């Protein structure tokens, strides 16, 4: 067992855990934050993306020990006060999801991408979101949602 000191969505957790656990497993099972999903476990689908110090990472490939001291954000942290952030609202407005399984990762990645008023072009948006699979094919509406956020911030 190792002791880890995690900061998730601004809250600190001190845990004694097996070092073989991934950050994803600890989030979902120890912290009961099931918004972060697992669909492949090997870094190919992107549904497990969380923000580590603001940057999207595949949490299925990160041992929990490596999350110690890193500020982790999950989808549960985005509308913590009950108000959807502008990316979430744009996803609702444009219907940028279907089954919803990739949505937490898409919303988090788009939120990170658009922070600080960034205005990426469509090719950059596709590149940034290219690591997250959506089997339902919500991609056109996801692009629309991102465009809505960029448009609003103009």
């Amino acid at each position, binding site marked *: 067992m190792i002791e880890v000191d995690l900061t998730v969505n601004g809250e600190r957790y001190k845990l004694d855990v097996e070092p073989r656990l991934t950050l994803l497993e600890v989030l979902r099972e120890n912290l009961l934050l099931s918004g972060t999903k697992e669909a492949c476990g090997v870094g190919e689908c992107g549904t497990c993306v969380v923000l580590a110090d603001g940057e999207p990472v595949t949490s299925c490939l990160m041992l929990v020990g490596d999350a110690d001291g890193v500020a982790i954000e999950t989808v549960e942290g985005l509308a913590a006060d009950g108000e959807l952030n502008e990316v979430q609202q744009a996803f609702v407005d444009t219907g940028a999801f279907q089954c919803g399984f990739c949505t937490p990762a898409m919303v988090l990645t788009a939120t990170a991408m658009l922070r600080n008023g960034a205005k990426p072009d469509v090719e950059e948006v596709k590149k940034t979101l290219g690591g997250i699979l959506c*089997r339902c094919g919500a*991609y056109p509406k996801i692009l629309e949602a991102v465009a809505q956020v960029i448009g609003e911030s103009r």
Partner: protein
Amino acid sequence: MTGYVGTRAARVDSVEKVTGKAVYAVDLQMAGMLHGAVLRSPHPHARIVSIDTTAAEAAPGVRAVVTGRDFPYLFGSAIKDQPFLAIDRVRYVGEPVVAVAADTEAMAQEALDLIRVDYTPLPAVVDMRLALADNAPLVHPDLHEYWKGPHEIIPHTNVNTIYRHERGDIEAGFAAADLIVEGEYSAHALSHAALEVHAAIAEYDSSSGGYTLWVSTDRPFMLRSELAAGLGLDSSRVRLKVAQVGGSFGGKGVPVAEAVAVALARHTRGRPVRVELSREEDLTASQVRPPAIMKLKTGVTRDGYFTARTAEVLWDSGAYTAYTVGIAIRGSQTIMGPYRIPNLRILSRQVYTNKSITGSYRGYGTTQVTWACESQMDDIATQLGIDPVAIRLQNAYEEGDPYLNGQIMHGVGVVETIEKARDAIGWGSVERQPAPHLRRGKGIATMIKPTMTPSSSNCVINVEQDGRVSVVAAAPEIGAGQDTVLAQMAADAIGVALASVSIPATDTALTPYNGPVASSRTTYHMGNAIVAAGAEIRDNILVLAGEVLGVEPDDLDMHDSVIHDNDGLALITLEDLLAKYSGEGYSMTVGSRFSTADSPLLKADAGVEWISSIFWMFCTQATEIEVDIETGVIRVLKVAAATDVGKAINPMTCEQQIEGGVIMGLSNGLFEDFSIRDGRIENGSFADYKVATIQDLPEITPIIVESVHDEAPFGAKGIGEPAAAATPPAIGNALYDAVGIRIADLPITPEKVLRALAEKNLAESRS
């Protein structure tokens, strides 16, 4: 007054999904829950000589170890051919052999290492053509002894389905042809690859002998029947609760994780057992689309009208039939396309092989046969010198045409889909060579899809005293937006605000029967049930309001939960009416049942009425692609996809289905391919089984065509399946347009493109 139907209402599952609060089967945690793991067959075909589980049983945290001998049941809806866990014989690589339940998933997986299974390998048959041979190894030597439904099999062979259909005079039809075109096409196995893997929790109640399961499924009642029938239980002894479903595409209907979870739960003294497949297991050992080899022979006149077509289709069910018997029958019919063909003959056979189980896959056979039909359509057009759009338009079904069982077709918008797709893609012009190594072309393909007929849906609508409405309908939200469109229809049928309508999660103990959320049937069938129940409950409310207000109910109406008079003057809100004027603890409940069984629309030739469909769906897609002639890589630039949906209850969710179908079709047609060697899938991982990403996204123009259907709720038919089928042939036809080559075998890979280009260049240099 306008209502919610026809508007782009935000999806009712929006907030829970964008906040990560939506709960899927894989998210559920229960007190006392154990975790399962499965030891799977390494052989495509083998006899199990012995299984030694002693060491695993003694391993830390292990609570149960179960083999097929410990749980000797078979299931299967058309043929009862599949064990919950292999019994004495394994029939594909990945078949569950031993299941372990332990305190943690890691402990369960570790215990698998301690199990010893001795096998005697048997000759395997992994090629569907070889499975037909006289001396082929038999995958199911006992096929003739299994329970089966009414369809035909050939006992003592691998043929688990044989189906024939004929209409007209086929010989005379070919005699009348000016040109006969023959071709053979094949469609490959595909994974549904829903992002949420198969997962289930099962709990056994020893006092009743029943099971409760928490599952991810698109067809709770069919899954329940299959489990119960397999276990020899009354249906209601198996209770299914359905959470959000993280994608299905036809793949979450048969027992997969459920079968293992049930077998384990029987041996864990009442503790619930969770079984979640890994992605590798999900890809290689859940279900795949059944591969097909399709031979088409078509006679046409000089001016491009059909005289006759014969179709011979061979389907590969893999080791067990699951829901594929129906695909071999229904799917084969649609190989005739949405075209008037006066003389036709179909021979369809499906064989067992020692490969992964196949199952229903978005389109139920149409994705395979549309590839053959529409590829050949362009061959015919080329040989006759007729434009591909023109030949489709002149042969396409129109309202009132007879289907291939004589049913008079109603709600037929195929011509409009062809015209609109043609116009949107800018048919007839293309920049042929944008760079020295690039070539562009355009292609078109169309398709027809019936829906499961007859079938039924039941619903209960309950209005609570605060005016909130729950629509109890067993139509799990698989992502396609059914909760939203059902809520929109309910809101308009009753006259309440959309925000007041909710659809509780399905629980087979509480929710009345519904057919599957499959075959694009939910909007039409459950919609009709909701419209009927909604109208009745609205009448009841207006009667109550009439009594209270002292007005004739006929002089009242309700909209957005406000009761008003016929001049539109608001009189009272529903909430106030029920709160103030009805008794304490009041709730108003109405149930209804809708079935298509007795519809006059289904009338057809004697003996083949069962082929009729209550409605028809059509989708035409036109594509523009770019081919890199040095690497063979195809980039799809544009897709115009026109789908005849009847009435769009919600244009936004319709677009979602069209766009999602196109992307799935593109992914199916270009990227997704199992590499199978000696019956073993080599690429059972998302690292090598490639699903399209946002970077593969073409410019998609979704087009909604609204043909009129008299019996449809608000005119709405269905939409979920059609869009995925036309994409691959539209790309294949665009490839022919771009560089003059035709790939007959899916998928269209860069290697095949380069090889075909080389062959074409060689042939041209010789001539």
